[in-house]
């Protein structure tokens, strides 16, 4: 049978991901996780409690992303809470620089966060440097519609992981509602369901930095020059210990944030981050950072369908 047989062509065109109902997704995931965690020796009751409790769910999510930081955060918050009984914080009456940074890194409600940055990877082994341009717009109002333009990494099934920092990736435009399968625009004019993003597009991406400031792990180091402009440099210290490498990412050395002295918006971020690949270095150089009003035109920036109204697809 020739591949141009219309039956074969029609059938081959059926092989696409599809988006199930959100209730189905969540219920099945809860059941599967409960089974897994029961096997790991945890009680289903504890899991059910965690799932039903909003702040606990958020904490679990934070642990998944940054277990080292978050574990330390628990301890630090507990200690801070105890200390607060006896000592008043000096910035309670006079907001300090770091508290103002926290405020600048807090997306105001009812806005659209727009960030554009170059992600510069430097690897010593193999020796290479690559730069990837990223940009996203995300609505801070649920369901947190977003659109991102980024270099997608190669299919990991066919890639050598240790050479990943040396590849530039393929430019792609993706979008959708946070937590749901995302769409990708493909030429000539089509939208398709895509694999999940491998960087966390979030409506509040700097929550971890605010958390580190609250924990007392951030230290103002004064002004410095970065690419010809004066910036404020802040050192963010790692936690005292990290869980096992397989448990997730955990910084093992200081990270540095650079902030605009006027707006306190981020200008750059330097970090190493991953214990499995200690020779990799990262710099994120922010080209745009702004909170846009929710006008019709700006909302369209978050909407991949609005950007491609004639595109075919789901």
């Amino acid at each position: 049978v020739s591949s141009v047989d219309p039956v074969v062509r029609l059938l081959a065109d059926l092989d696409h991901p599809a988006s199930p109902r959100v209730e189905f997704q969540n219920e099945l995931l809860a059941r599967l996780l409960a089974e897994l965690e029961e096997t790991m020796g945890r009680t289903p009751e504890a899991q059910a409690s965690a799932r039903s409790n909003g702040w606990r769910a958020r904490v679990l999510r934070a642990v998944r992303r940054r277990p080292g930081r978050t574990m330390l955060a628990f301890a630090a918050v507990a200690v801070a809470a105890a200390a607060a009984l006896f000592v008043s914080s000096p910035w309670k009456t006079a907001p300090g620089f770091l508290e103002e940074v926290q405020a600048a890194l807090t997306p105001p409600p009812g806005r659209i966060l727009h960030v554009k940055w170059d992600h510069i990877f430097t690897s010593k082994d193999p020796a290479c440097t690559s730069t990837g341009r990223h940009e996203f717009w995300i609505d801070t109002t649920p369901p947190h519609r977003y659109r991102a333009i980024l270099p997608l990494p190669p299919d990991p099934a066919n890639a050598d992981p240790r050479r990943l920092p040396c590849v530039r990736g393929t430019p792609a435009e993706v979008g959708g509602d946070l937590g749901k399968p995302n769409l990708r625009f493909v030429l000539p004019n089509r939208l398709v369901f895509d694999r999940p993003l491998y960087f966390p597009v979030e409506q509040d991406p700097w929550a971890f930095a605010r958390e580190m400031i609250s924990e007392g792990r951030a230290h103002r180091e004064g002004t410095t020059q970065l690419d010809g402009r004066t910036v404020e440099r802040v050192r963010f210290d790692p936690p005292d210990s990290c869980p096992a490498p397989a448990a997730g990412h955990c910084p093992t050395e200081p990270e540095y944030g650079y902030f605009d002295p006027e707006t306190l918006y981020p200008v750059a971020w330097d970090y190493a981050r991953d214990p499995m690949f200690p020779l990799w270095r990262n710099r994120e150089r922010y080209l745009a950072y702004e909170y846009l009003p929710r006008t019709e035109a700006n909302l369209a920036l978050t909407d991949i369908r609005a950007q491609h109204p004639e595109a075919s697809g789901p």
Partner: protein
Amino acid sequence: VFALPLMDVAVREVEALGLDPARFRAFYEDALPRIYGYFLHRCGGSVPVAEDLSQETFLASVDELKKGRRPETPIPWIYGIARHKLLDHYRKQARAEQPLADAALAFEASAFPVQDDGGRERAVAALAAVPASQRTALVLCYLDGFTAAEVGGELGKSTAAVHSLLERGRESFKRAYLEVEL
């Protein structure tokens, strides 16, 4: 801040899937749309059937993990589980000798997510209307990419019998494609 698209990929891929809930969740979020779509398009666009089979597939995957299985390539692995679930489903349909009209009723046009192309909806409905044994051969050969000999091995039939099923399946599909009403 926007941690590591490349590193994340690397870490995810060099670790085998295990009992860790965070890793399983990431795997689930990646795999569910694929597996759900796999069933939806092969089962007449029926949301209940696609949900049931997706659930069975993921529960079976968790059972395997609980038994100590640690797949290094989780996506192909769960597709394998899904394929077996689909074949079981087709076998049950074949035993029930589901008539063409009944199978066509399983199509739920309103729930089908692909709306850009009426041809695709029609194809999904037509595939559901093909008798189950022929549909099995069509799906395994033309969607899943197996050879007739491999399909024969899976179904316990000769290669010639699979070719015969394919021939009749294509005719059934064409007829149903032209007759189906959306």
